[in-house]
């Protein structure tokens, strides 16, 4: 199948509702390519885990269907899907040793002992836990348990591995270490991984592509860079990385550039969302794309901003300013000579290019994290 255009996993208009009223997953269309690392990213309640569980077979879609390798898996019970799964709290079997945990999927498939042992050893090597066969899960640290869980999901050579927030229980440092570890394993084996997380940074570090979910719908699917640089929806812009939002009204459209009236100023911005003159719109600007201008007349978008406070973060400064009658506007400027003179209460001239400022679908003011 590889290389032949057809995606490995296909969600076709998949919806899920538990009570018939509220839909947890709403009409999701999603393609997952063979061998890629795809992350379902979204806040809690966005339906990402449900999406995963439907693929694993622990939930059934209310409507729509899921295809794997071109075949519908609707009527296959989880055990026949051959999908490796890493659960949130590892779900290791506490009464079995690490070796027995790993051998379990092989034994239920009727594999003979010698082959079993060989596979188990190989899997332990993969997660760098050689010599831990005879320990019990309870005697391992969280990170080690995590590795065992991953090894167990991989030991029977599944083509597809699902991970449901596997790093949620680990502390920050360990989490970062495991992110690279999982990434390394994915590269080594070339399996298809579907990964669920609510941590956008984790998603950025690990994924080939990210599907951002919100309220059961897929907002955007793209690689991390595209997602950051070219968000198609204001939710995505807000959810991925830091982002300033200005709410205004479209005054004029010229090709790709809109003129938007925001808090007494006219701002030129690139049009992403389909909008017409008179529509409400939300502008999205990344804090690092805003410059403090030494003198006026350099840029199209120039505004006077009042510095509310300054945070010194070593390599850069983080300014919180009020601009266009919007407070909490964040600017990040590199800590180069000359900026040390800025003080809270100063008025400065800030600017940005129209292409760094995107007109997205309107969000009601105050909506957000």
């Amino acid at each position: 199948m590889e290389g032949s255009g057809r995606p490995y996993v296909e969600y076709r208009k998949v919806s899920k509702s538990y009570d018939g009223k509220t839909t947890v997953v709403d009409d999701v269309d999603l393609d997952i390519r063979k061998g890629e690392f795809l992350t379902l990213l979204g806040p809690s309640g966005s339906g990402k885990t449900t999406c995963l569980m439907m693929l694993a077979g622990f939930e059934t879609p209310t409507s729509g269907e899921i295809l794997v390798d071109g075949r519908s898996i609707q009527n296959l019970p989880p055990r026949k899907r051959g999908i490796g799964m890493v659960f949130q709290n590892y779900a290791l079997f506490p009464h079995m040793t690490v070796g027995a945990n790993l051998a379990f999927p092989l034994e239920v498939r009727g594999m003979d002992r010698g082959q079993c042992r060989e596979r188990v050893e190989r899997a332990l090597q993969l997660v760098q836990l050689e010599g831990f066969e005879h320990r019990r899960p309870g005697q391992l640290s969280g990170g080690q348990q995590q590795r065992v869980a991953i090894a167990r999901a991989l030991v029977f050579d599944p083509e597809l591995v699902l991970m449901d927030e596997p790093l949620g229980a680990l502390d920050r440092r360990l989490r970062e270490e495991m992110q690279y570890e999982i990434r390394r394993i994915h590269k080594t084996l070339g399996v298809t991984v579907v990964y669920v997380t609510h941590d956008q940074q984790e998603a950025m570090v690990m994924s080939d592509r990210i599907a951002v979910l919100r309220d059961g719908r897929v907002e955007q699917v793209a690689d991390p860079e595209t997602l950051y640089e070219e968000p198609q929806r204001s939710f995505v812009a807000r959810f991925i990385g830091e982002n300033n939002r200005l709410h205004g009204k479209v005054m004029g459209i010229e090709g790709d550039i809109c003129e938007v009236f925001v808090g007494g100023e006219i701002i030129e911005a690139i049009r992403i969302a389909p909008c017409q003159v008179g529509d409400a719109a939300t502008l999205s600007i990344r804090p690092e794309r805003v410059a403090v201008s030494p003198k006026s007349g350099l840029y199209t978008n120039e505004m006077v901003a009042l510095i509310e406070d300054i945070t010194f973060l070593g390599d850069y400064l983080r300014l919180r300013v009020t601009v266009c009658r919007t407070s909490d506007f964040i600017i990040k400027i590199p800590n180069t000579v000359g900026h040390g003179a800025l003080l809270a209460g100063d008025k400065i001239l800030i600017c940005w290019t129209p292409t760094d400022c995107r007109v997205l679908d309107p969000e009601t003011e105050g909506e957000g994290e």
Partner: protein
Amino acid sequence: MSEIPEKEAGRPGSGPRPGPRPWSGPRLRAALLVLPLLAFVGVTFLAPLANMLVRSVYDPVVADALPETLERLRAWDGQGLPDEAVYEALAGEVLAAREDRTLGQVATRVNRVQSGLRSALTRTARRLRNVDEGPWSDAMIGIHAAWGETGTWRALREAGDRYTARHYLNALDLQRDPEGSIAFQPEDRQIYLFLLWRTLLVSLGVTTLCLLIGYPVARLIAHAPPRRANLLLILVLVPFWTSLLVRTTSWIVLLQNQGVLNDMLVYLGVIGDDGRLAMIYNMTGTFVAMTHVLLPFMVLPLYSVMSAIPRVQTSAAESLGATPWQSFWRVYWPQTLPGVGAGCLLVFILAIGYYITPALVGGSTGQLISNLIAFHMQSSLNWSLAAALGGILLVCVAGLYLLYDRLVGIERMRLG
């Protein structure tokens, strides 16, 4: 409590340094606070237990009443009849015992060794008042022929032992034959071993039934949504809170010959009116009622263990390719073993000493060993035998406990 100072002393590096004095200040106060409970347990539990166990091997009544006779009997070789001196001593002591009103107790005890001797003793004591002088042997044999038999004297000598294994032998249907070696009682007098065996089997059966019925119930409760789980748990607990007597008698209403179940079966035509099933006042009744009464003791420990098993474990097993049976047998069941062990041990120990239910619904074929213990405590007043039976029961339970500890490990038991 003496452990604490020992541990202190055993700590490395604490050797020469004077540790805290063992019974100073707060520690003493803590010990004093525990004291009432210890005393309570001692007085209400340990003392009676020890008393009963002592009673099963120690019985001084006969020895105290007939010291001289027994002293002289010791010289007797056990063949033929003892000499005149023994008769004389016995005559004197029997009369004295009659005066002290202890003769009845003595007679009862001797009678237990060999039946028929009660009347021999009491009649002899009554009639001897009219005999002024010897030879005593002739007079006594004249009063009761038993005094002319070797067995009588052997029995008397045996009954005179202060410390005796007689009651334990008795409780195991054993006895000492005339040569002094241990042998089974005549077949028509063997009842205890059979009853003990029956008690063990019934307890085992009830435990198995409770496990078979209780396991699915516990699992259902443990994995139901919280609100429904609460309701189900209450349904299990309501009978638990109901008086044992009420529950047992309600089974009588249901199962008796003219009871609800039989009436229904007859009404439905499953059985004829003359073919009503005997479901109570026999083993069936004991089984049914005991299982019902003891079920909560199985469900609760199982429930507590099961509710601690995350449901994702089953999902994980399934995602790894296990069939539902493999997932249950290899992943779920082993994790519930501590609860199974606790529940079984609890039900078994309670069942083995069960008394009220078999007494009420057991009829004659559904009686267990504890009913016999109660009989010896209350009716035959053979407390020594009751104590011996109780002691054997205690040994059985302790043995099972140790076996469980060896197989599963007591520290893995979870009661909830």
